[in-house]
């Protein structure tokens, strides 16, 4: 079933257009950075961007930091929001259920397909970022500097980049789960995607608000930037672990809601 979902997803031109558009922004940023040589001021701009000027091999991380706050979640919300509602809108959902595909299996397969999409997207962004980084900037691929000022070997850097890619992927689980959950409530993919984005915008807004600090640790976007913590030395696991657990909780709760709704729902589309 998961193979079928992946075939459906990746045979779709729209999927690849999304990934291509997602890569556009880091490339634009890189070109502008090269043309102007203006590094963001400390504390401003995406993480790792100032470091790229001295070592282009770090651009994959900057590219991730660039797409992480908005572009990536939008893409995930659109793809995940489409997963069930899109089938309903096209009318293919009734044929899947009558095929029969178990409703629970369908939900899980959809979520897994979205996560594979996220992973592929993140890896593509990282690889394109690396190629852009070493072409446009001076690169010292031999080693890298950690955020804490220590020197990381190429192997360490690779492993940590791998961790970061994995973490960013997991960070998108919450968005995916929200969109998937909404997707079972509506026959409109757009409504589901917008619903998930509304949650994200609300979460990002609340995160900046002092009055919301009691609920801040539970906001789905709270620990997104913790992927930076992989590049501290030693790795700062606190927020990473919390981020993973939080996404896990969101996935379990929202998938539970989606499951409860979807398995008892009349498919009338």
């Amino acid at each position, binding site marked *: 079933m998961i*193979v*079928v979902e992946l075939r459906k997803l990746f045979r*779709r031109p729209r999927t690849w257009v999304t990934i291509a558009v997602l890569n556009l922004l880091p490339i634009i940023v890189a070109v502008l950075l090269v043309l102007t040589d203006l590094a963001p001021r400390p504390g401003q701009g995406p993480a790792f961007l100032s470091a790229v000027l001295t070592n282009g091999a770090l651009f994959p991380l900057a590219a991730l930091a660039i797409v992480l706050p908005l572009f990536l979640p939008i893409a995930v919300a659109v793809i995940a929001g489409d997963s069930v509602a899109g089938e309903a809108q*096209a*009318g293919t959902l009734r*044929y*899947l*259920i*009558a095929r029969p595909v178990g409703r629970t299996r369908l939900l899980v397969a959809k979520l897994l397909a979205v996560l594979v999409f996220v992973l592929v997207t993140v890896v593509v962004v990282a690889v394109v970022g690396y190629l852009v980084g070493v072409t446009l900037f001076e690169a010292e691929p031999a080693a890298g500097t950690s955020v804490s000022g220590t020197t990381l070997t190429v192997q360490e850097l690779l492993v940590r980049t791998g961790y970061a890619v994995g973490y960013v992927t997991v960070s998108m689980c919450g968005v995916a789960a929200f969109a998937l959950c909404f997707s079972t409530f509506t026959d409109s993919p757009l409504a589901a995607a917008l619903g998930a984005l509304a949650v994200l915008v609300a979460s990002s807004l609340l995160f900046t608000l002092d009055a919301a600090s009691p609920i801040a640790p539970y906001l789905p976007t709270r620990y997104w930037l913790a992927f930076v913590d992989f590049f501290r030395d030693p790795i700062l696991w606190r927020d990473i672990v919390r981020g993973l657990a939080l996404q896990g909780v969101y996935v379990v709760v929202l998938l539970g809601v989606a499951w409860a709704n979807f398995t008892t729902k009349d498919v009338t589309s």
Partner: protein
Amino acid sequence: MTERDAVITTRGLVKRYGRTRAVDGIDLDVRSGDVYGFLGANGSGKTTTVRMLLGLVLPTQGEVEVLGRRMPRGGREVLPRVGALIEGPAFAGHLSGRENLSLLDASGPGGTRRTRRRRIGDVLEQVGLGGVDRRPVRAYSLGMRQRLGLAGALLRRPELLVLDEPTNGLDPQGIAEIRDLLLELHRVGTTVFLSSHLLAEIEQMATRVGVLDRGRLVLQEELAVLTAPTGATVVTTPDPAAARAVLDGRVLTEDGHRLLVTAADPAEVNARLVAAGVPVTGLAVHRPTLEEVVLAAASTSADRVERPGQGAPR
């Protein structure tokens, strides 16, 4: 009726949406070897019933049994043996017909991967799409999509076909082709549950008929029984007055040159009229048409909206 295996049985099936009862306590009885014509006006609850048979819509009350298993619980064992066309075909527009069938086959149980390519070729041939190329379904005509939908239903050689308006969007030749195909499948043992609002389609194909009216099953019988001779004879004569005199009170109705006469044997009526010198231009055993039967059983059209108090009595 001989005791054949029950294929679809429902008992007191009810589906309520809010306060309206879309399906109101129906007891379907479809048996192996039937071509069951499920007839009803638009909005009479046909589609909801079909969806309940396939486990898409969950009944509010009552039971559904398909191929001996309770639905929707038994769907995993039963549905691979059922082919369905529900309210028109639906496909991923960016993929070709073959790919769509392949994905549909791969997504559920009962579709062996080894034979998939051959089975897809066979069913495409069967529905008249054997020469279809790699263009995406988006570019198909309505009739081609309908044929592809039917191909999807036939992919696993199902014992039961549940078809909702299968000839929708087809031209007259297409309709005839599909009818022949379904009759051929029926001949080799497939039970066909055919839901339609077209009387003619049901009359031409069904062996058994169920009539749904405003959520209630008002009629369920063998077509042969419904259209059995009524014990009357239809006489056509240019001189109805003379005929009426000869037949003396046995004339039930008179409609121009056409008389309905109480007589099981047309030959006897003919002999008397000819003996009396009344010219007879036509003579036939009287059978009711399906239309007459349905109109007698069903109330007014479901999409009429009457003012309160003027509605037809139920």
